[in-house]
């Protein structure tokens, strides 16, 4: 099991077994979406920004 630090609030987050690269997790302390970018060693960053625009 790996521990990572939330870049937003610095909470310590334990990654569950079976976590995949690219998985979106939620920081249990601040609620921000985080993306797992590596597993060995474990790394996370803020998940992709959500935008809105028109078009169809």
């Amino acid at each position, binding site marked *: 099991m790996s521990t990572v630090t939330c870049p937003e609030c610095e909470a310590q987050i334990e990654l569950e077994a079976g976590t*995949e*690269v*690219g*998985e*979106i997790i939620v920081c249990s302390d601040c609620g921000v979406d985080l*993306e797992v970018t590596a597993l060995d060693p474990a790394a996370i960053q803020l998940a*992709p*920004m*959500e*935008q*809105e*625009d*028109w*078009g*169809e």
Partner: protein
Amino acid sequence: MNDFETLIGLVSQYSPSGKERGAVEWLVARMKSLGYDNAFVDEAGNAVGVMGKGSKQAVLLGHIDTVPGEIPVSLTPPSPLAPLPEGEGKLYGRGSVDAKGPLACFVDAVAQVGVKEGWQFVVIGAVEEERDSEGARFVAEQYKPDFAIIGEPNQWDRVALGYKGSAWANITVKRGQAHTASGEQTAAEAAVEAWLKIKAYVDSLNANKQKVFDKLLLTLRGMDSSSDDFQQWASLKVGVRLPVSVSPNDWYEKLNEIISDSRLEGDCHLLVEPTGFAVPAWGCEKNTQLVRAFLSGIRSRGGEPRFVYKTGTADLNIVAPVWKCPALVYGPGDSALDHTPNEHIELEEYAKAATVLSEALKKLTG
């Protein structure tokens, strides 16, 4: 052959909705020449290309029709084989962005990936997306994919995860003639009152919503009134862009509820009539291997991936509720250029998107 032959060839086949046949036949021939196992025109008139014969299926659904308004196809600089200063290679033409760019990108990426054991790639150039999505309605019942990628322009480094729904209605007020000195409410006044009630309801529902994707977007598309010797009437054309939380049926029920609550004076009668094809909004699950493969692919090309939610509708809204599989919308191009006289796509962006897509497909089927 060059990296842009599919794109340039497809955009050169002008194909407004209802007149797609030439482009469809060109694309079928193109897919055959690129080594697809099968390519054909289906019963709805869609261009379909199949790569591989595995039991697992990935459908890449683009649309081959465009809005009307032919734009002379031109390249800047004139040859894509010439050295391209960064960001300066552009292809102008109707559909270069919406959405032949994404469709050509699908065709090229699958050709690049080739056959993957256990998998079947199905690339579809659907007809009529700019009208009633007849092509997508047909394919929704023909396939049962393990994952689906829908082609719309969202820039090479963005993954679209949601499109709003839409619903349209005519609201008509009728009443018998009355003397103008009687002070009785006219049909036109009752129609205006109905509109104000609908708008007040929508405003209250939107009050605490931060995201446009979560709001109802109401539009009054037209109003008319007239009378004869015995009757007067007024009508409103009301459109709405729906969030995921409100289905078209929910909306029509609410319209009827608001209208029936209206305190109409005299012998006014109000009628709500749905028009056209209503489609529900759709939001894609973002925690899937499909999305992860795209995030990885975008980063591998030096991009910083972003998610986007759209206020329009797409063929995603038609097929996703039926297929119920992981899905997303992807494709190169700036949707701000959709339907404009200046529609063009940057060749560098097209090439990046084709690479991102082929890397994602390899990862998903490897």
